[in-house]
């Protein structure tokens, strides 16, 4: 990676005695679309607001384009932000809202209106310039908020959960529009969301945050394929990865996973010597489990609890001992609750985590 656009080095944040951000180290390359994702209260919005300059930084360095900007005022950072509530001024028209930052800089009127026109055309807002925000739909307001950000030609645009106020259909559409916008203008984007689907579909890289700490920072597919701990494993991917607790056992030369429900599966090709008898967690994605007719090919038996038939695929909620697992089957599958089912797992798709939740390397 060449010089990153944004770099956070050991960044900390405290509210009184409560530390909300713990030693965050990440770098965002120029033109990259980075998504901060995590459950509510994980500190992702705080981190974003620290980059924007709306929150102070209590420790560490925030570097923008090679320059430390911890103490640079927000408006001089070359950063624009799109707020969750859009924060469109209700007393201004769309054109005035978009051109507000230029107006504050005393840019000549003619130039403002030219710039507003350019942005409005890009965002298909040209027809709406004289309207007030109250007369716009949710999606239109969203676009005005984006317009207000990009008119400044910022090096970095920050998005704070921008799609959470939109209905599901509009969200999918805006997701596509944002990606298109990113490809056209190539700004560096940092985007906060609690929705891992948004993160997976838009990001070049995802930062998974939990309780103020970076759990993992990588490309979407890398996070999906190689989660470093049970938190990321459970957070990335929809539906969630199944996490089963058990112990490591040995069947001759081959180490095996013995589920608490009683069954066991071999774990070939892993060097787990010295760990025999330890408590571990086995992770397996729902699409890597399939029902089989022949008990001989199955890894374990379970009972169907809930069946969700979506047409193209079927979700089976099954119970095995105390554990509940989700199985994702391609195509329609007519099963009913209470039925016994034989399940086979893809043994190459196992994720193994130790007692503290960290992944055990293959």
């Amino acid at each position, binding site marked *: 990676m060449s010089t990153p656009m944004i770099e956070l080095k050991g960044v900390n944040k405290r509210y009184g005695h409560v530390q909300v951000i713990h030693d965050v180290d990440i770098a965002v390359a120029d033109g990259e679309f980075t998504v901060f994702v995590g459950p509510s209260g994980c500190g992702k919005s705080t981190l974003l607001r620290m980059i924007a300059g*709306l929150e102070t930084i209590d420790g560490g360095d925030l570097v923008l384009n090679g320059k430390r900007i911890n103490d640079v005022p927000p*408006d001089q950072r070359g950063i624009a*932000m799109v707020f969750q509530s*859009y*924060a469109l001024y*209700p007393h201004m028209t769309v054109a005035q809202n978009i051109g*507000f930052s230029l107006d504050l*800089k005393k840019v000549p009127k003619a130039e403002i209106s030219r710039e507003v026109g350019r942005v409005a055309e890009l965002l298909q807002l040209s027809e709406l310039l004289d309207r007030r925000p109250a007369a716009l739909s949710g999606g239109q307001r969203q676009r005005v908020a984006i317009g*207000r950000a990009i008119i400044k030609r910022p090096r970095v645009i920050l998005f704070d959960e921008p799609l959470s106020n939109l209905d599901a259909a509009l969200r999918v559409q805006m997701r596509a529009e944002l990606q298109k916008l990113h490809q056209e203008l190539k700004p560096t984007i940092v985007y906060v969301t609690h929705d891992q689907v948004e993160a997976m579909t838009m990001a070049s890289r995802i930062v998974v945050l939990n309780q103020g700490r970076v759990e993992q920072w990588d490309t979407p597919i890398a996070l999906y394929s190689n989660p470093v701990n049970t938190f990321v494993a459970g957070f990335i991917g929809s539906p969630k990865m199944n996490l089963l607790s058990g112990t490591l056992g040995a069947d001759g030369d081959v180490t095996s996973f013995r589920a608490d429900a009683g069954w066991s599966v071999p774990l070939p090709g892993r060097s787990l010597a010295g760990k025999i008898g330890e408590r571990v967690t086995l992770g397996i994605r729902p699409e890597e489990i399939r029902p089989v007719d022949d008990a001989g090919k199955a890894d374990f038996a379970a009972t169907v609890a809930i069946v969700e038939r979506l047409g193209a695929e079927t979700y089976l909620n099954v119970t095995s001992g105390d554990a509940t697992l989700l199985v994702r089957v391609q195509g329609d599958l007519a099963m009913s609750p209470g039925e016994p089912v034989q399940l086979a797992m893809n043994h190459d798709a196992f994720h193994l985590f130790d007692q503290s939740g960290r992944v055990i390397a293959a």
Partner: protein
Amino acid sequence: MAEVRSSRTVLTSITAYGTLIVISIFCLLPFVWMALASVDSNAQLFLKWPDSWTLDNYSRVFNKEDGYRWFGNSLFTVLSATILVIIISGLGGYALSRSRAWWKQPFLYAILLIRVLPSTALLVPLYKILLGFNNAEGAVVRPLFGSASRQVMQIFGFIDGYLGLIIVLTAGQLPLALWIMKVFFDGVPKDFEEAAILDGATLVQRIRRVLIPLALPGLAAAGLFTFMSAWGDFLLPLILLSSAELSTLPLGLFRAFLRVNEIDYGLLAAIAVVYLIPAVIAFSFARRFLVQTFSGGVKG
């Protein structure tokens, strides 16, 4: 069966509307008397149709009596207090809304207590305090302005001066206005200001271009409440003002009523109408803003 029910409904309606009409007449009667008496050449204490229609009563309010001066004094003191309340409650309400200080809740309830206490009970200490200020001010003003000091004190004095009345009116109306503005700013998301900060707005620009326009309905409501309440205040001007030049409308009305030999009902009614008009105008403005302010915040 259906007929019984419908006749009962009719009876209920008649009773309800009848009661309401009686109450309305009872409420309206004083105003009707006032309006009629003010244009009656021979107004009496009882309600009657004017003997002959005339505007003479009004012309006497302004030509024979000090009508212009009373009206001007009232308008000046009440508008000054209103402007002061708007500025202070705007800034204070914002601070009270955004602050996380521990004293915020106690303070808000304390100022409400001031509002609840009857101001009449506090008149003596208030007068005493203002008198102290006034004497101190007089001691400075008299040597400086000599013979003109009476005029100076009539404007800037705490007792028998515009300033004293304006300050006391302002202080009396501030608690409610602060509450209105605090609650109003609670409904204005911080995002608006933060967006303005990122757009490069200075503090003054944020206040002028973002906060004031957003707070306008709240400020209007606070200002109109203040205006209406201060306009109707009689006791404070009565206690604090004694010079005839400073007399306000309610004082003029009161003194005209007190004249022993001639009770001129036409004149009294005309003064009362003049006194009412600004309040009615203020209320008609207020209705629009009150609905917006008390039905919740700013719509984006």
